């Protein structure tokens, strides 16, 4: 039977992440959002505390934590700020393809330096200016040449990008053959011909730097190829199957923050002679926020548990990612309503929750794509 409780080590980890979010993230979140500035001090300290790059295996000097551990930590950090958490989440997104599909040698070379000291980031580049939800349509070209590959093309919406030690880039060696010719290549930060252009003017998650990646005759050695030619898209999708879970966990953190702010406000603010929490219209909003929060968390942990158990987790991870982000967006929206005018201004934290978590419905596979994934399985089972 299932044990729904956290072990003592998981509780310790949760406690550490919670304290870190409260003491280090929450006090600076609004400032970094306002300035769209990178939270260097926070990320540096996160690295020092071991909260960065959790998935790097023990063999490479990392903690080798699983998906559930990541989810527990992620919820706490996102409670502090989803934007700041995305920096950490996106780094693990760059780490995961190597964990799942890299050779031991590749893991040693690329992952060990990430946990060697200081805040070192990774990145993951699949989306392109003209290809987001349809990964088989990527046009970034990888041509075989002496000693390795030559890459040309552009990638878009790459979190951490210019700050990362390396980026896992998905490209095609033959546009006619689609996924069957796709490759996954590790592109180091110092590669010749690689440049970045930062994306400005984001609605939310403004502490998380986002880039366009420009590959202009970038050469990468042969041993930077993950798996074989033809594995590229498969590696990308199997990575996303797992990394959907930390995204869902981040959404759970935001949903919890929305409920926290709304319920505290509602117990202090008075209207018609009593705290507004005593009026059913508001009380029901709080109840619905709680319903969404609990459901989102348990589905997220369920998907995490499947991943850690080595079971196929894509379907349940898709449910968690879609549901949790929609739930958090709805809760953030309701929190704005509960706070009324105060919810609409940036002196109070809830407006930012709404702006931040909107992206959770879009990145790492839009919620529309998640629904396709989910529907496919439901239909397949009905047809069988």
């Amino acid at each position, binding site marked *: 039977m299932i044990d729904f409780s956290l072990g*003592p*080590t998981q*509780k*310790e*980890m949760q*406690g*550490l992440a919670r*304290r*870190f979010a409260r003491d280090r993230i929450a006090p600076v979140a609004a400032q970094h959002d306002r300035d769209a500035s990178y939270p260097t001090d926070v990320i540096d300290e996160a690295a*020092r*505390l*071991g*909260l960065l790059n*959790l998935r790097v295996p023990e063999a490479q000097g990392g*903690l080798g*934590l699983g998906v559930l551990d990541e989810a527990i930590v992620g919820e706490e950090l996102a409670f502090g700020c989803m934007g700041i958490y995305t920096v950490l989440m996106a780094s693990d997104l760059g780490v995961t393809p190597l964990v799942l599909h890299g050779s031991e040698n590749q893991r040693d070379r690329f992952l060990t330096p990430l946990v060697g000291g200081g805040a070192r980031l990774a990145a993951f580049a699949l989306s392109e200016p003209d290809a987001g939800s349809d990964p088989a349509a990527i046009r970034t070209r990888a041509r075989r040449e002496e000693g390795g590959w030559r890459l040309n093309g552009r990638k878009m919406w790459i979190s951490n990008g210019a700050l990362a030690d390396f980026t896992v880039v998905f490209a095609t060696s033959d546009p006619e053959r689609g996924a069957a010719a796709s490759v996954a290549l590790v592109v180091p930060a110092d590669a010749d011909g690689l440049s970045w252009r930062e994306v400005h003017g984001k609605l939310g998650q403004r502490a998380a730097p986002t880039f366009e990646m420009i590959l202009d005759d970038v050469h990468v050695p042969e041993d930077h190829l993950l798996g074989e030619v033809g594995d590229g898209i498969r590696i990308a999708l199997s990575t996303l199957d797992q990394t959907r879970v930390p995204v869902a966990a981040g959404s759970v953190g935001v949903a919890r923050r929305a409920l926290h702010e709304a319920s505290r406000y509602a117990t202090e603010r008075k209207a018609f002679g009593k705290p507004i929490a005593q009026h059913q219209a508001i009380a029901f909003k709080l109840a619905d926020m709680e319903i969404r929060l609990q459901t989102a968390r348990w589905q997220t942990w369920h998907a995490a548990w499947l991943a850690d158990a080595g079971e196929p987790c894509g379907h349940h991870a898709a449910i968690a990612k879609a549901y949790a982000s929609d739930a958090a967006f709805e809760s953030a929206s309701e929190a704005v309503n509960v706070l009324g005018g105060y919810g609409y201004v940036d002196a109070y934290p809830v407006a930012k929750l709404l702006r931040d978590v909107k992206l959770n419905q879009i990145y790492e596979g839009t919620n529309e794509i998640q629904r396709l994934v989910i529907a496919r399985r439901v239909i397949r089972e009905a047809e069988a």
Partner: protein
Amino acid sequence: MKIVTVIRRVPDAEARVRVEGDDVVLTGAAWVLDGMDEYGVEEALRLRESGIDAEIVALAVGPDATEEALRTALAMGADRARLLTTDAAPDPLTTARMLAAAIQEEEADLVLVGGKQADWDSAALGPALAETLGWPVADWTTSLAVDGDTLQCVHDADVGNEALAMPLPAVVTTQQGLNDPRYPTLPNIMKAKRKELRAEPAPDASASVRTVSRTVEQRERRRTLIEGDPREGAHAIVSLLREAGA
């Protein structure tokens, strides 16, 4: 050198307090390693990091759940932990008696304990422990150094500070500003899993005080609130000062 840090598990300050019957009920309580005791764990770690060869043992008296607080101490860097289990919630003097036997067994040179306990609102544990052991004690310590067999420290007196020197073994109680306690890092939390945490029943010790009842402090304040013109606020304050005879 053997350093024992005494810790307690107390409710987080965010907890809301209610009394049901004669028992205190804490809602929304996260239970944490008492912040004052954290200074003690941190100081032990700093002594070791300054070059003193020391084994650091975290010691506590309490119910089984106290293990969580001991794990935090292990995750900060203590080497071993011991729990003397009891559900009795003993008072400071009784707790001191329970701790003394274990401390003597460990042949400790230095004992660090929080200067004030957050749930009892008490500063008695450290001094009572020192007296039970027959050791000298430095309370409300803001800095300390170990020089061979001697402890040098600065502590808060009633007015101002004093510098104290005393032979080891000794008890030191902590004060805010002694140090900045470190967060347990994730790698250390993982490593702590493998460190020894030994639990055994606390020795029998009869208490000399007994709680007969508890009530939540109800202090009704006037709560006259004034907004708007600062002059109105100023005048309201002057009225109160006059009434108070100040």
